[in-house]
């Protein structure tokens, strides 16, 4: 088995290598960083434009209609939230299982979570139509004397997602404190030292502090694990608690959670592979990490594929004509190409990951991770649109076509994600130095 850390690493080389990416100055920044930042800013400009037009005109600029009252906004929301989940899985669940291969990828996987949740959060806010009243989602004493309906999954979702965003941010920042202290101590320029010093909160690595720190960190891992499962379960309740054929299924919570982890690992690979290449981090993100992530993707991909098969089986076995019609319409109706593209992306392509040679072929794995990201977006599109567009009464049937404003806002949310992620790469240590130092004894000595 490959090592989790490259050869000839000691405590000093770990700090130096990771912090020099930031402290080494602008001359060391790879062209890749500028390209990513520029792409992010460009798409973000589109988002600003799209949001301005949306606020001027209302949600009518989107392709929504009745019966398809939930379009891109919910598709993108679920897609982004799902992507975020792999970060929590890597940092929390693998922490509890003491998987030492998590340590060099957890920092940026957590950053990915945070930025994905930020992108997800855009969509409900934009979809409420009057975002300046979005605070109505929260329970607060008001002159109208109304409260949110606490029996509704949509209200659970508000609590689940806002808790998830808060806890992810706490987890990420807590993990960063000791590394920010390292940055403070290694920085040469006074103002850089001060900037990191403020965020390091005066951390000095005292044994007493470490004791409490480890308790707090472990508890956060223990809390985040059920939290991440609850978040996507609640997201699936948004659908499953309704009576719409295609949504009303007990299968949804586990199937959504597996899909979330699957898409999240795909996104971690999509980000980790270029970062590893352009920042020359092969000693910290080894083939072992890449291989393990591919395996997790395969395992969760199989669960998701099982979910697709069970959906079809339930539709037939239910004996309910609406359910069975929905399945047939999904597979052979007007959105047929989307369904079969989804089966191709999420059902067939990941089967190649059974082969070790595919898991170790980095360009191919990168391509597969992109395919899986697209597949998971298609999955949400198929679930949302094909379940809605054929209503119970044929007189209500309609088609859903996204408009330019749907696309520009969707791409803009990717821009926001890229911008935040590339700023993170430039200013925050992207690998947890103090955790990787635990792996130093495993580093092979070569002459």
């Amino acid at each position, binding site marked *: 088995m490959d090592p989790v850390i490259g050869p000839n690493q000691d*405590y000093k080389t770990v700090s130096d290598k990771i912090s020099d990416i930031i402290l080494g100055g602008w001359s060391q920044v790879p062209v890749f960083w500028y390209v990513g930042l520029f792409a992010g800013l460009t798409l973000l400009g589109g988002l600003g434009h799209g949001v301005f037009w949306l606020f001027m005109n209302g949600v009518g600029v989107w392709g929504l209609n009745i019966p398809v009252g939930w379009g891109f906004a919910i598709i993108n929301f679920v897609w982004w939230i799902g992507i975020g989940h792999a970060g929590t899985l890597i940092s929390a669940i693998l922490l509890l299982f003491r998987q030492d291969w998590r340590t060099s990828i957890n920092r940026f996987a957590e950053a990915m979570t945070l930025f994905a949740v930020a992108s997800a959060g855009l969509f409900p806010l934009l979809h409420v139509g009057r975002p300046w009243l979005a605070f109505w989602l929260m329970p607060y004493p008001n002159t109208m004397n109304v409260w949110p309906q*606490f029996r509704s999954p949509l209200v659970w979702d508000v609590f689940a997602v806002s808790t998830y965003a808060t806890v992810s941010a706490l987890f990420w920042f807590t993990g960063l404190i000791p590394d920010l202290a*390292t940055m403070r101590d290694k920085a040469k320029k006074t103002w850089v030292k001060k900037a990191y010093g403020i965020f390091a909160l005066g*951390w000095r690595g005292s044994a007493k502090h470490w004791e409490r720190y480890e308790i707090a960190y472990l508890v956060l891992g223990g809390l985040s694990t059920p939290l991440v499962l609850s978040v996507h379960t609640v997201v699936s309740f948004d659908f499953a608690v309704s009576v719409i054929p295609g949504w009303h299924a007990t299968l949804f919570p586990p199937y959504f959670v597996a899909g979330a982890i699957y898409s999240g690992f795909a996104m971690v690979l999509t980000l980790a592979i270029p970062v590893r290449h352009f920042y020359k981090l092969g000693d910290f993100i080894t083939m072992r990490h890449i291989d393990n992530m591919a395996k997790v993707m395969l395992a969760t991909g199989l669960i998701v594929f099982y979910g697709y098969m069970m959906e079809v089986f339930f539709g037939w076995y239910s004996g309910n004509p609406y359910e069975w019609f929905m399945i047939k319409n999904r597979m052979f109706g007007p959105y047929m190409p989307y369904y079969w593209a989804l089966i191709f992306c999420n059902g067939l392509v990941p089967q190649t990951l059974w082969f070790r040679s595919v898991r170790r072929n980095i360009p191919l794995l990168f391509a597969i991770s992109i395919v899986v990201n697209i597949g998971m977006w298609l999955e949400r599109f198929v679930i949302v649109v094909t379940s809605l567009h054929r209503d119970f009464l044929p007189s209500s049937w309609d088609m859903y076509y996204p408009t330019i404003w749907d696309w520009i806002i969707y791409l803009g949310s990717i821009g926001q994600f890229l911008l935040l992620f590339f700023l993170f790469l430039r200013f925050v240590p992207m690998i947890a130095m103090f955790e990787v130092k635990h792996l130093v004894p495993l580093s092979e000595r070569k002459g």
Partner: protein
Amino acid sequence: MAAKTHALVAEFDTPEALMAAAEKTRDAGYKEIDAYSPFPIHGMGEAIGFGRPILAWVIFAGGLAGLALGFGLEYWASVINNPINVGGRPMNSWPSFVPIMFETTVLIAALTAVFGMLAFNGLPRHFHPIFNHPRFERASQDLFFLAVESKDPKFDSVETRTFLEGLAPAEVVEVEDE
């Protein structure tokens, strides 16, 4: 006027050496000792004679408070303040309150964990005398330090220095309290 001494600090190269030195110092009867390392070392708290922190219990209490807060909010809003009869269902339909109770439990427990950890550690803190050590910036990189603080009843600038030098450190430095 010479500044007061904060501590005598011995420097080590490896976590194992720090651990061994800390245990010897504790066994020699010193109480006010602290160890500084770039990463957490398992068992170090015990080695410097630091008992189990109560933080875990505080977090547990935070979680319970979150649970009570979630249920209290839902019960008060749905049963007392604004009861709405939906198809004759019970006002206190507690099973449907559980997801939010879970979320508030996690939220308050997580906030307690992070802010409790910082509060017990006395952080954020602008300055600490240990930063006067000439090489302390490497405590967050690759060096390990053991400090015997001057507030220890057994502290004596000569005797303690001799004791620490007997532990085979790279160097012993006197750190001032300013």
